[in-house]
């Protein structure tokens, strides 16, 4: 596909479960970003990768959040022991090389019951 692909599009989990969200960036894009968008809010930065290196994880809300990009392509955002406040849309974006432009995927809507 031509764009950033995220899966699943929707995820429902019970509080306390672990979840994994996947991002397939545009082929050849070096930079990859994760954002969290709560209902009625703008996206908030979570973390940034350049190839497989995680250069900034300052936006991750807690140590329950973990992101990886082991081969410099596909990335996974993992949330352990989910809480209700983790309910949000998680957006992935990629770019040829920082800074711009960032191309966003359509997000994964996560609902924690």
């Amino acid at each position, binding site marked *: 596909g031509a764009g*950033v692909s995220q899966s699943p599009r929707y995820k429902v989990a019970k509080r306390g479960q672990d979840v994994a969200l996947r991002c397939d960036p545009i082929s050849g894009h070096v*930079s990859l*970003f994760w*954002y969290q968008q709560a209902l*009625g*809010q*703008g*996206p*908030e*930065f979570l973390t*940034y990768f350049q190839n497989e290196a995680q*250069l*900034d994880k300052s*936006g991750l809300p807690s140590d329950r959040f973990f992101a990886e990009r082991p081969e410099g392509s596909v990335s996974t955002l993992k949330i352990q022991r989910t809480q209700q406040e983790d309910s949000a849309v998680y*957006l992935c*974006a990629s770019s040829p090389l*920082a*800074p*711009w*432009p*960032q*191309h*966003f*995927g*359509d*997000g994964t809507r996560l609902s924690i019951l």
Partner: protein
Amino acid sequence: TQLLEQSPQFLSIQEGENLTVYCNSSSVFSSLQWYRQEPGEGPVLLVTVVTGGEVKKLKRLTFQFGDARKDSSLHITAAQTGDTGLYLCADSGGSNYKLTFGKGTLLTVNP
């Protein structure tokens, strides 16, 4: 921490009307970007402005950047139903990768 304030928060208008939405920053912009986000989709970049006083036009959309680089506006002429969406402003804040977003203006254009 940079804060971006967008106004109005909600706007509902009839097709054919003109409208303006605003973005104000607590600090000087580095590289201001405007995005549109439709329901169930990710934000799509509309324009990037970097120079104080800059004006950019994209068909019926006109983007202005304040001289002091702390404010920006988006004006839409003769709105169409396809303009419906969440309009977000974002700034890099001096970083070359991290975007800070405002909360957005939710625009509804009614037929």
